[in-house]
């Protein structure tokens, strides 16, 4: 559907469109503040999301709804890549970012990334140390 500008968008589309926003990833909204050890219905879909974009490298035959180590690791990497606080939890800032529209290309290809999570941190780079006198 193409719209040459905003005004010609048929008003009848608006309510339908609003309803369909939830069709893609809006279900992630219900995972607010769940963390490692939890089991929440639908987390398997979130794992598939992370698998699709390269954060969980191997596709298990059957994703579970457990908040396991794989999911926590994926969350940490995702949060680092998107400049979020690295909590390893499904906090609100992370969820708000997860539901944003995005490019379908993976962030991590073949397990490697040069986004933030692939960059060295200040703790493992050589720094110039100075002492005040």
């Amino acid at each position, binding site marked *: *559907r*193409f*719209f*040459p*500008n*905003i*005004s010609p*968008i048929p008003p009848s*589309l*608006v309510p339908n*469109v*609003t309803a*369909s*926003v939830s*069709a*893609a*990833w809006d279900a992630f909204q219900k995972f607010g503040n769940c963390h490692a050890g939890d089991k929440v219905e639908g987390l398997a879909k979130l794992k598939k999301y992370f698998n699709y974009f390269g954060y969980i490298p191997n596709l298990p035959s059957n994703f579970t709804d457990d908040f396991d180590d794989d999911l926590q690791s994926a969350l940490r990497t995702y949060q680092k*890549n*998107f*400049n979020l606080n690295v909590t390893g939890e499904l906090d609100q800032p992370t969820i708000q*970012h997860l539901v*944003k*529209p*995005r*490019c*379908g*290309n993976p*962030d991590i*290809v*073949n397990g*490697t*990334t*040069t*986004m*933030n999570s*692939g*960059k060295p941190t200040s703790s493992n780079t050589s720094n110039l140390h100075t002492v005040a006198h």
Partner: protein
Amino acid sequence: YSTFPGTPVWPPNRLDLTYAFLPENNLSDEAKAVFLRAFQRWSAATPLNFSETTSFYTADIKIGFFSGDHGDGEPFDGVLGTLAHAFSPPSGRFHLDADENWVIAGDISTSSVTTAVDLESVAVHEIGHLLGLGHSSVEEAIMFPTISSRTKKVELASDDVLGIQSLYGANPSYNGSSGSSTPSTQARETSAAGDHH
């Protein structure tokens, strides 16, 4: 910025690239012009040139709008979610989700439609992939993976320019502003308009 594993690029003897639209999409000239502007933003910064051809199957870059499963193993998911995807060089495949509410002109920030997506913004991003760039963590960069609806982001950031010039070198006439260094025809139009004013 990042590149794909192995850093694939278009070879030095293929810097003049052709692009074509899937004939079945029957795009309007106005929609095609959006892609032209997107290509110009990258050619302004690099030695790459892009020209449209009507021969879809021989074009270097093949642009198509598809719904759902379209045969490449990466099905689209309807309104929002994933908007588009593109393949690394020299594949040239550039696919967009036909179910999105693509806006091709006007001030998208004033839209009352919450799912309106700016086509040029997405096109500039995907062309970055077609040329060999991966995703960036720099939020201002075109190659940042997410874009909010009703948002326009089309200017290359310094991170994008550094990335693409690391792959292809710089356009000698590039002046650091992707919006003002488009090809000479546009520069002449600007000049003529200024004279008239």
